[in-house]
């Protein structure tokens, strides 16, 4: 029995399907990059009281870690002051709410805070920019080129790659090296990142939300999660400060220096 004749591909498949899909995907990626840039809202400025609320907490932490550098009296006065202010909540931005804190209140809803809402909308925007063109592209390929075989890889592969390389083609015995149109789309979708990096520079958003870090930078940068009870953080910080003992680092510095520069 003669060997089965190799599949012969029409060169116009290459010219009119393979390259167009690649080109369209690159262009869509670039378009997506610029749309994301346009949709980006500028980082929102915190108001002064919110900044104060966050930085005061940091002040407690720096007293705990670096307090050993300042004289005992100086440390003590700061310790007393910070513990008292944390407990009295004088750094809180919402004094009214703090005074009424004994009233039972529902657990804070992240959507109720303006900051939380903005974050949600930003995430939504990012996802829309990613999902809409993908849906369009996929249905375009499905509609016009479904079941097309586009190219043959120049190297052998094991049978496991069949589902990756030949999605949309229901032929069990076809050699794994043949690549279908739908698979070509997926290969481009995941493989074009480095091309975008060359075209648009690194840190582009053409690849959409492929990586988690790019998806939601606001969440990483912001100090507090929305809906967190800051007063509780203050109380625990006050407790931490209370537990800190002061070991003055400069107590015996004269001896240290003399020992180092033994005359």
């Amino acid at each position, binding site marked *: 029995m003669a060997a089965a004749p190799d599949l012969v591909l029409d060169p116009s498949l290459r010219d009119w399907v393979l390259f167009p899909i690649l080109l369209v995907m690159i262009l869509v990626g670039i378009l997506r990059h610029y749309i994301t840039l346009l949709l980006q809202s500028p980082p929102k400025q915190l*108001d002064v009281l919110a900044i104060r609320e966050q930085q005061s907490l940091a002040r407690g932490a720096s007293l705990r870690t670096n307090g050993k550098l300042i004289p005992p009296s*100086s440390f003590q006065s700061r310790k007393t002051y910070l513990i008292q202010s944390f407990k009295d909540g004088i750094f809180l931005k919402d004094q009214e709410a703090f005074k009424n804190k004994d009233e039972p209140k529902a657990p804070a809803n992240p959507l109720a805070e303006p900051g939380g809402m903005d974050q949600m909308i930003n995430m939504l925007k990012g996802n829309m920019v990613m999902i809409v063109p993908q849906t369009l592209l996929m249905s375009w390929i499905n509609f016009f080129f479904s079941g097309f075989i586009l190219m043959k890889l120049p190297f052998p592969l094991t049978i496991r790659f069949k589902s990756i390389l030949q999605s949309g083609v229901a032929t069990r015995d076809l050699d794994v090296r043949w690549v279908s149109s739908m698979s070509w789309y997926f290969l481009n979708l995941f493989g074009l990142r480095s091309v975008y990096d060359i075209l648009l520079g690194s840190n582009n958003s053409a690849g959409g939300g492929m990586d988690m870090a790019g998806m939601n930078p606001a969440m990483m940068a912001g100090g507090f999660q929305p809906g967190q009870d800051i007063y509780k953080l203050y109380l625990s910080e006050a407790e931490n400060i209370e537990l800190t003992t002061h070991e003055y680092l400069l107590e015996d510095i004269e001896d240290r220096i*003399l020992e180092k*520069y033994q005359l």
Partner: protein
Amino acid sequence: MTTTIDILRNAHSTSSYLTLPSEAFQSLYDVSYKFVTSGAAARSLPPANLYNIFELQFFLSIIAGKDSEANAILATLTDRFRQDSHRVGVLRSIYLEATEGPLKALEFVSGRPDTELGTLKRKIVILKSSNQTSAYISELLKLVDNFPSDAESWAELASAYAEAGMYAQSLFALHEVLLLAPLAYNINALIGETSLVYASSLQAASSSHSVAIEDRLFEAVKFFLRSVELCEDYVRGWAGVLVATKRIAAIQKPFGDTSTYNRLYDVARSRLTKIVETNDASESDLAAARLVLKNYKIGI
């Protein structure tokens, strides 16, 4: 090899142009001017660096007194980042202060949102330069209350208090800086110096010596020692040790045991002498070291 871009970036990030001697400043200005106006080299830079260099050129033009050039650069930056960018706001207030006087600048700065640290600092600087001391200090207090983790504001507050002769408050602010920047040897030396001056002011107020004065001097020694522990050849620190130990010895003469401070004095003296002999410091530091060695000579 350092390229033009490296020189400019370095000048921008360290603000070295503020203290350059005039010829060096002129050459930096020429380099920067050529770079900004040529445009060809500029296009190869990532935008963040490029606009930093624009900012540098703005500062250089202001210092050199070339207002129209500064205005052109400010216009470019405003076109790119719009009026509401806080860095552009800072530059505009600097430009206004240079051309139309502090009042106009103050008016402009007051119209900006009160969450911009840079603009708030500008306001304080303008108040300071127009001699409104009480407004200046109260604005500073407001600033450190709202932004307690900004070391620069605390340091400014410390110098404001020191100028007003309120040394205890000044020391408090400096301790706060130290909490935020634990390894700042210059701040340690500054605390030492402030303690010394504090001791002198106490001494001037009451003729007899008191425990408080001694405590201030002991503390001064500790902080000077800390600064040289962090930075071994720090002329300012060693000079401080020398002066402070000398003064302790002078006060304590009829009393107790000064041998530790005697030995510290000797160590400081030998370190300073060595630094002067090996020329291992900047010209001004060496001059200061020689002066201290000469004036605080006498055996204890």
